[in-house]
Structures are given as structure tokens and as C-alpha cells.
């Protein structure tokens, strides 16, 4: 959907891991540049256009979180954070610093590719409600979907558990309320078509989301099935703007 081969910059201090990620991504039709630390990253970003940044949290010198905050202050380039910690604190910190997504080491390379595709597609699919700067959450029928914390809360304020794939799909749906979205376009918006077979089909994910948010999953009123083959998100969606913490 976007450029045939996106320019990706991998910032990672472990040489082996860096080369391997680069090699894997090149095999999957990406242009990859690499950087060892923040200084090299700044040089690489000045030299050529970067469509997406893969940023390790643990870096020599300035760490990934602080680099992420600096970049966010200047540009909207999508950022996926990598960390060896994988604790919730890091996840929330990373996303509050303005990262678009987050992967804990050791990660599945296919999942990294899927996340890259999802972030790029989200970026490319313009004129959605949340591309307005500063929108971090959407509200519909009392529900609230928070992109920063990657969590969904019901009208009672209770957190509802979702997998990453379910969350991305619900996000794609409620960013485009009232529009009929085919299975293919939902696949494009979320995982990318060649993301691999480890993700569930759109239909399975939709039925799981329905079970969680519909008052009566058998008679869906929020995510309606369209006869020609697709889904439409019916509730009115409202943007919630919260300034990103730590943004200077």
C-alpha cells in the first residue's frame, strides 16, 4: 500500500542482532539502514528519509526512551521500541514517550514484520480520526479505547482483555466509523496480507471482539456484518485528546 520498500532504520547496540534484523527485513522487501547509538541514528536520519524507526531501549549513551521523546518532538516518524525487559512499566513508558508499538525481546521476527506493516499501514491510511495530532484515545457508546496504553475499558470503567491482533482490528474499525470495510482491507490495515499464518482470520477475531463488547454477541449491533462481505462499525466515535506526557 505504501512505498514498495519502506526505509527502516534499526537502532540497536548488539552488532549481531542488528545485522540479523537488517538481513531479515531486507529479505522481506525493506530498505534497511543501521545505527549503533543515538549519534549514528541522528546522522542516518539526516542523510536519508526514514519511514520507520526500530529503537532498542537499552543503548550506550542516551537510552532509547529519551531518543524516542526527542524524535517525537520533531517528527511523526513511526517508532517501534525493542526492549529486553518486557515489563509493563517499559511498555507504558515507551508508549507515553510517543512510540507507536512495542516488542519485547526475544521476539518473533515474523511478529516484528507484522507490527512494521501494521504501523506503516496505519500511518499511510490517512484521514482517520486519530491521525489528528494528540488523539490518544477514542470513545464509543461509553467504551474507551486507549492507544497509548493499548487497553480497552467498558462503560463501567473495567479493563477488557484483548490480544494485540484484536486490539489492532478494533482500532482500525473505530477509526473508520460508518464505513464498510472488507476483510481484505481490514487485513491490510492490521496485519498485512503476507504477515504469515500465525494470526487468526479476520472473522475469528471479529467474533472474539463481539463477544467482548456486544451486549448480545448473537445479534451484533456495534460491529455489523455487511452482506456483500465486510464489516461496519456503527456507534458514534468521539476523539479524546490527551497531551503526550514528557513531550517538550
Amino acid at each position, binding site marked *: 500500500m505504501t512505498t514498495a520498500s519502506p526505509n527502516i532504520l534499526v537502532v540497536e547496540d548488539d552488532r549481531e*542482532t542488528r545485522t540479523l534484523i537488517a538481513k*531479515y527485513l531486507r529479505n522481506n522487501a525493506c530498505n534497511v539502514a543501521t545505527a549503533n547509538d543515538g549519534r549514528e541514528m541522528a546522522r542516518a536520519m539526516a542523510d536519508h528519509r526514514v519511514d520507520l524507526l526500530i529503537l532498542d531501549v537499552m543503548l550506550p549513551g542516551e537510552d532509547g526512551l529519551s531518543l524516542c521523546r526527542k524524535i517525537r518532538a520533531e517528527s511523526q516518524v513511526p517508532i517501534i521500541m525493542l526492549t529486553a525487559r518486557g515489563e509493563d512499566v517499559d511498555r507504558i513508558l515507551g508508549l507515553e514517550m510517543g512510540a507507536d508499538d512495542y516488542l519485547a525481546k526475544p521476539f518473533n521476527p515474523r511478529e516484528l514484520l507484522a507490527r512494521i506493516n501494521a504501523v506503516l499501514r496505519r500511518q499511510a491510511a490517512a484521514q482517520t480520526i486519530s491521525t489528528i495530532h494528540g488523539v490518544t484515545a477514542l470513545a464509543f457508546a461509553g467504551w474507551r479505547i486507549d492507544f497509548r496504553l493499548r487497553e480497552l475499558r*467498558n462503560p*463501567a470503567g473495567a479493563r477488557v482483555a484483548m490480544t494485540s491482533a484484536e486490539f489492532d482490528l478494533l482500532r482500525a474499525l473505530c477509526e473508520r466509523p460508518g464505513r464498510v470495510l472488507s476483510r481484505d482491507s481490514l487485513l491490510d490495515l492490521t496485519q498485512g496480507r503476507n504477515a504469515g499464518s500465525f494470526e487468526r482470520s479476520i472473522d475469528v477475531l471479529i467474533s472474539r471482539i463481539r463477544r467482548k463488547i456486544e451486549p448480545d454477541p448473537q445479534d451484533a449491533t456495534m460491529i455489523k456484518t455487511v452482506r456483500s462481505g465486510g464489516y461496519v462499525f456503527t456507534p458514534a466515535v468521539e476523539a479524546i485528546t490527551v497531551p503526550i506526557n514528557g513531550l517538550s
Partner: protein
Amino acid sequence: MKLLDFLHLKNISGQIAALVIASIIAIHLILAAIFLVSRPDQPDPTIDRGHAQFAAAVLLLGAAPAADRQRLFADVARAFPKLEVESLPPGPVPPAGDPEGLDLRSLHRRLDSRYRIFPLAHDEDRHKVGIALPDGAMISAKVLPDLRPRPFWIGPWVVTLLFAIISVSLLGLWAARALTAPLSSFAKAAESFSLNGAAAPLPERGPEEIRSVAKALNRMRERITTLIDDRTRMLAAISHDLRTPITRMRLRSEFIEDDVHRHRMMSDLDQMRSMLESVLSFLRNDRKLEAMTLTDIATTLQLVTDQFADMGHKVAYDGPEHAMAIVRPDDLSRSVTNLVENSVRFGAMATIRLRVSPDIVTIEVEDDGPGISDARKDVMLEPFVRGDEARNMDEAAGFGLGLSIAHTIVLAHGGKLCLNDREPHGLIVCIQLPVRQPNRQSAA
């Protein structure tokens, strides 16, 4: 303790010696005071005054020559009118004997055998007795009633003595207790020693010996805590550092041409990753990083069910579509995931059940595996204990942390986890959680 400090009695032996000496001195002082006040060593003049007068008068009359006796009678009657001394007409001496109801032992002691006492026949007054003097003359006199001493046990000095002994013993008991109380607090502290460092150090007070023991115990506690912390840090560091090579290997495995080998390598790496994660989450458990929040736990359980179903396991969810409770959502999810992981490892299918009552949610994870014998149920909740005992790392092996982590998480929620048998075979892990946390009533 101020006084003890002043006297420089810092040793427990010194304090006990001081206690003993002080008690002895106290008892001696009290006894001495009682003796000085009531003089029990001197005969009480009131006690046998009657008998002494009687004996003196009789001896006087007996020793006097018969000629002087009339004049002496008058003198005695004047001096001791109460004795009512009279001379009896001469005649045969009646047989000797004590009159009824009178105790004349002290009289006998004072009069020698030449004086004989006999009862009077015409008994107008019971207290009057007849006495035959050595020369055969007979007189009658009245024996004044003795002033009986008060019974021994109600004497004022006895009561005082008893009071003193009881109070000194009580004082001694109290003081001994105060001396040994730190010892029992040591036992309690050693018993409740835990590695989370929550318990306060022992107070370093009291006698020298106790203080040095307290100091030594506190130092030992510090050393143990440091040792455990070091080991925990080391384990965490190893687990962290292993992630880098595993990440590399995971990336490398993508370049393996042979599908069979690639898949096997990936599943090995997945196993290593999940073991590392279990160690890290075990080390993280007591730190309670995650905040409590209102959560639809039914969706959490559905999510776990879906994830296992996606991996090709037979896992079913049985319970309401929605159920609210205040929990740490990620911790709860990890806990149930661990239980289901065990279930599908040892059994062919697993069922996650959810029952909700106003105060308690009950989550059951049931499998049809071999179950756990009653003898091993408690042991299985300990970390690094595995069902198969042997340390061989076959494909189904973990570190033996899954159940222990689940248990710790449930305890941190103020709930409880128990292992039950399933008929005909299998295990039911039952988790009970409070719907609301007691210390915070309102949801976040």
C-alpha cells in the same frame, strides 16, 4: 533500666544477682521490722498472768509458818482480791485431780509436787480449786482464766510476712520476665523472618548479653538479605542477558532452509523464552508493580482460552460473558496462563470455569491428567518443584515455577489457591479472589 545503668549492672548475671540480693534484703528488712515491733521472743505478760499470781500466792502461803498464815491470808486477799484466797477447814486431803474445764498445766509447772491440786466438791464456782499445802493445810483459790493468745495465723506479723513474701515473689517474677522477655522476642523474630525485608530489625536494648545477641541476629539478617538479593540479581541478570542470544538465534532460525529443523529450533527457542519469562516473573512477583484496576475478568479468561485454542490445545471456557473484579489484570492473566499450561502439558484437555458471587470470584482450571497425590499437593506450590521429580529436560519440562507463580499472584490479591482432585482422574486448581480489595473500596 535507668537505675540498672546507673549501677553499671549491664550483664544479665549481674542483674540476676542484684535481683536475688535485693529480694533477700527486702525480706530481711521486713522480718526485722516485724520482730522489733511485736517482740515475739519475749513472753507476753498478759497471757498467763492469772496462773503466775496464783502460783506466787500459793507458794507464799505454803512457805510461811502456820502462825503467820492468817495475817498472810489478809495480805494476799488485799494484794490479789481477784484470787479470792480462803483457808479451808482442816480434814482429810481429797484425791488430787484437775477440775473439769480448766487447763492447769502452767500451774503444775510452777508448783512442785508437794502442792496438790484437787477439785472442790461443793462446786459453787467452777474456777475455784482446792490446794493442799506441804504441811497439810488446805486453801481454796480462784484460777483466773488465762488470756488465750490469738491464733497463730491471724497475728498481724504473720499477715505482714505473708504479704511481704507474696509481693517479693511477684516482684521477682516480674523482674525475671523483664530480663528474659527479649529472648522470647528473638524467637518470634527468627520465626517470622522473611526475605521480603518487611520485618523491622530487633531492638538492641536490655542487658549486655541480650544486646549482643540482638546485634548478631540483626547482622545475620542483613547478611542473609544481601545474599538473597545478590542471588536474585544474578538470576535476573542471567535471564536478561540470555535474551540477547535467544533473540539472535530466533532471527537466525529464520534463515534455516530446512523447514523441519527450523520448526524444531523455533520450538526449542520458544521453550527457552518461556522458561526465562517464568524466572523473571517469579523474581518480579513480590514487587507488585502492576496497579489494581477494575477488570472484566471473564474476558481475561476468554483471552487465555482463545490463545491456547489457537495453539491447537483443547481448552474450553465455562462461565459468564462478563464479570467485574478489582485485580491486576496482567498478573491474573499470567497466573491462569500458567495453570492452563500445566493442564495441557499433563492432560489432553482443560476447562476454565468462572463462578461469581457478590463477594468472591472462583476460577477453576480443570484437566484430565494424572493429578497430584495428596502428599505432594503442598510441595507443588513451592518454587522449582516439578511434578515428575526428575530434572530431565524433556519437551514438557519447565522450571517448576508455574504453579508457584500463580499461587504468589493469588496470595498478593488476598485470595487463595487450592488443589483438588477430579473424578476419575485429573486436577482442579481452584482460585478464589475477593471481588473488591479491602483497603480500597472504589474502583480505579
